[in-house]
């Protein structure tokens, strides 16, 4: 049976704002993150195959591409964390003014890049 309830409007109809950019990126990074977590579950499972079989995965992760993938994952996780905190604050009833949504949206975008650098430095023991 076809559902007659309205679907979300196509994203190309309205003019883009920071809030719409953060909203759609939140959804995209959410889907990327769960795909990444699935791959991480697979990675952990492959540990059972033993050290010799792990060598191939280790080579990939130690390559330049591997480091780029880890940085991309870090950004995606950072974006999701900041965007989720923004959502939780809005759920408490704060930050609905147009100016505030622009500022909080900008904080999420810029903050995710800063967080990526900070997390990488902490993870590698530089901080």
């Amino acid at each position, binding site marked *: 049976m*076809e559902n007659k309830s309205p679907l979300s409007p196509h994203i190309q109809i309205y003019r883009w704002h920071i809030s719409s950019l953060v909203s759609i990126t939140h959804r995209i990074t959410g889907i990327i993150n769960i795909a990444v977590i699935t791959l991480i579950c697979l990675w952990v499972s492959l540990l059972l195959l033993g050290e010799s079989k792990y060598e191939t995965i280790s080579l990939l992760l130690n390559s330049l591409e591997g480091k780029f993938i*880890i940085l991309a994952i870090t950004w995606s996780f950072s974006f999701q964390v900041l965007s989720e905190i923004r959502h939780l604050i809005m759920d408490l009833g704060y930050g609905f003014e147009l100016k505030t949504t622009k500022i909080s949206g900008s904080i999420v975008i810029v903050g995710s890049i800063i967080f990526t650098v900070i997390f990488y430095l902490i993870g590698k023991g530089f901080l």
Partner: protein
Amino acid sequence: MINATKKWIFLKISGAILVPLMLWFIINLIHIYDEKYIDVVSFFTNSTSSFLFSIFIINAYFFSALSISEVFEDYIANDKIKNVANKLLYASAVVIPLITIILISRL
């Protein structure tokens, strides 16, 4: 309380729990991804790490299943396709973390 309200509350609680777990995991992932096999295994066999990782993946799949079902609600008009997609989503949200946790316990 209607189902939509319950779903919203679960989504918010799991989202709040996920934030510190994501921070913990991403920092540790950066620390171990290029380490030797023995170091990666020792991370996942450490009781605190394996416990937190298990909670992290259970919560992440639970949160994602609820979130992605909202995306299905917004963009899939056909109820049959939406129901199948939701069932597959919820099944994978149970099966994948469960299998991973069992495998970690055998490391």
